[in-house]
């Protein structure tokens, strides 16, 4: 029964090598404090209990959300002027990486990406919602796939009254707002439970909530018509998903290596077989590359190529995560295929991450076009400042 506990790893020895490079000590302190809290509050046992809906285990999500608010995590990316910590994309990247590491359940990616969107496009009234977001008082849902909205959205507006339906929103079914594509605009729509109805669906990833929306005259409190509005949301989501994947992939691959050190067959640990050692090395190689591709997207996030690198990083990093998580399941052998081990949770998170925002193929296509467009303007998209 305790196999998964024996296989839990302590990553301290790897910390330096496997963390995304950050410059400021502030980010390091943030990272350490998040990691410390989550190690205690969202370990493998608690996560499995949550997934299985044991006793009061479903409260894990709300308890962590409350703690996240109290510790300031939800305001990491929100500017100080609007009631946050103002640690920008680097701070957000750090948070998502640490949340991903523990597969923390909750509407973090949707809500915090929407908050960044409000910072960029919101009017004063909308920006007033940022402080309650930082305080954990409300969450926001977003389309799980931005590139599929033509197929998933049947929303229209009369004035600021939104009606119709939308499939596959990401966030929490208790979301106060949803950021939605309505006709040719992106609208922040109030979900009051009367003019709107959310129906939860059951995604394979049991740590994330997806649901469908129906509304009849729901109130749009903000509408933005520039095309940048959709790109910006896609960018924020892509960055978050990429960082989430970096953290999660690291946990499962290091956990797998530790498992191989304890599992004995043919009178020797699996970790001593060269065929398996090389597989493990490939996991580290894939992860080391992926964390720096995510780093590329974070570093580019203030410049003209922010969208392109966020999209390309999301595609590249989530593909790496699927490879890593799948191989980790295989490397565990039979127990990797069981419900009680962690592997399947990471495979499911990886698969959902891969599908979020847009297919990796479409995001890669968009990136390629942007690279060529910049080139035609005589600008390189590959500069790295020292």
């Amino acid at each position, binding site marked *: 029964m305790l196999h998964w506990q024996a296989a839990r790893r302590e990553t301290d*020895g*790897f910390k330096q*090598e496997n963390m995304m*490079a950050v410059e400021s000590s502030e980010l390091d302190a943030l990272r350490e404090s998040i990691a410390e809290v989550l190690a205690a509050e969202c370990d493998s046992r608690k996560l499995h209990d949550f997934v299985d809906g044991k006793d009061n285990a479903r409260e894990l999500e709300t308890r962590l959300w409350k703690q996240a608010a109290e510790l300031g995590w939800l305001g990491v990316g929100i500017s100080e002027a609007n009631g946050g910590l103002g640690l920008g994309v680097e701070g957000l990247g750090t948070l998502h990486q640490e949340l991903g590491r523990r597969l923390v359940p909750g509407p973090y990616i949707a809500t915090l990406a929407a908050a960044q969107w409000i910072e960029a496009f919101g009017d004063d009234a909308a920006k007033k919602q940022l402080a309650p977001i930082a305080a954990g008082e409300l969450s926001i849902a977003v389309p799980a796939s931005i590139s599929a909205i033509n197929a998933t959205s049947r929303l229209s507006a009369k004035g600021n009254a939104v009606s119709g339906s939308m499939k596959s929103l990401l966030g929490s079914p208790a979301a106060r707002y949803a950021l939605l594509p309505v006709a040719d605009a992106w609208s922040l729509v109030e979900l009051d439970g009367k003019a709107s109805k959310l129906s939860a669906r059951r995604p394979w990833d049991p740590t994330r909530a997806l649901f469908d929306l129906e509304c009849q005259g729901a109130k749009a409190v903000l509408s933005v018509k520039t095309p940048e509005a959709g790109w910006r949301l896609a960018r924020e989501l892509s960055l978050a998903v990429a960082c989430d994947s970096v953290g999660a992939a690291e946990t499962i691959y*290091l956990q797998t*290596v530790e498992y*191989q*050190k304890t599992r004995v067959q043919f009178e*020797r*640990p699996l*970790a*001593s077989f*060269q065929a398996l*050692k*090389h597989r*493990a*090395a*490939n996991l*580290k*190689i894939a992860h*080391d*590359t*992926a*964390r*720096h*591709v995510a*780093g*590329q997207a974070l*570093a580019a996030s203030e410049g003209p190529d922010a969208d392109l*690198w966020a999209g*390309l*990083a999301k*595609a*590249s990093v989530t593909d790496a995560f699927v490879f890593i998580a799948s191989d980790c399941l295989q490397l565990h052998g039979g127990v990797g295929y069981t419900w009680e081990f962690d592997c399947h949770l990471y495979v499911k998170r990886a698969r959902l991450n891969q599908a979020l925002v847009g297919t990796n*193929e479409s995001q*890669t*296509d968009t*990136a*390629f076009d942007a*690279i*060529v467009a910049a*080139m*035609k303007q005589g600008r*390189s*998209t*590959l500069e*790295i400042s*020292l």
Partner: protein
Amino acid sequence: VSNLLAKKDNLDEFRLAIRAWLKDVLPPAEDLERQENMCGRDYAGFEKFQNWWMAELKKVGLWTPHWPVEAGGAGISLKQQIVIAEEMARAAAPRRNMFVITLNHVPATLIPFGTKYQIEKYVAGAANGEVWCQGFSEPGAGSDLAGLRCKAELVKDPAGDYYRINGQKIWSSMSKHARYCILLARTDFNVRKHAGISYFLMDMKAPGVEVRPIRQATDRAEFSELFLTDVKIPVQDLLGQENKGWTVAQATLASERGVIAFEDTERKRYEMEAVLKKAVEKDAAWLKDAQLRREFARHLATLQGLRRLIRELLEKNEIDHNAPTVLPSVIKVVQTQLYQDYADLLTRIGGVEGQYFEPEPWDANGIPGDAMHDFLRSFGNTIAGGTNEIQRNIISERGLGMPREK
């Protein structure tokens, strides 16, 4: 033009000065490419070209700037080295292929382990441009380098004691051009294999040294076999103590601190951008192929990840270059695999027109020169310098703490 190092303390000025000088000194790109292509084909032509480049570098202080001051270098910082490497890559300046061992391995090994005589003679000679090669691998000792069998026997002689060397070395790059060789040979066959190896400085003109180029899959011959028959190496050319050669060799193998990989990857960046630019200019057909476009874009993502991985290593090295890390092994695999995958892509883009031995450069498919050559050559990178399989052993054992092979 005077010594560019005069500007080194202001990195921006240093960079601009190097850039301006390179613009001035480099011949047209076609000439450069032709001369680079003599490598492994036209020995005399390549040697002349490399020596020309060395002379130009010497004039402006960029020949051995990374060497310590006491060895005749300028002891420049890692950041300053990076600026030089970046500008060399940007300008597609000639690589210093013929001098890799000379410029890096020789000082890194001789300065800590050499006698006064050895340093004065050989390090000074290397600074003057005497070419060195490396005699480490043997037909029977590749990945298992410590299993080497080349024999060195101490011979007492009134004219001066010497070691008599008999054996065979292989994969010795640039040895057709070399004046000296850093050589590993076995002085004791009766102890643990690592404990019986000694490190020598061998004169390539000594009687009994025969160099036979190895024809590669690319039809070039960049490296050779060395046949050593009763070669005399004077005892003063033993580096470090007898039977302590393995320890000395670790300094040689650790001499590369990431700057070479850095410059090489920066060159790849400009190369990939140039290919894409040409394809866009020519409106090449492959730009409309979804599969090929996506592969190209993903290679650019990997390239950026790799470039940042190398920067992580350089930053670590700046803090403490003795700190244990497997990043060099990770970088080696990522880099060489990217080069191979990228060449694979270009080969497919090239189609039948890319299958000729000397294809038209920048043909209708927008392929620069010879993608097939690059693809074949890429195996040189995945195999040399410790095969990628050996790197995976290192990563899993030293990086992930998995048990060593027995």
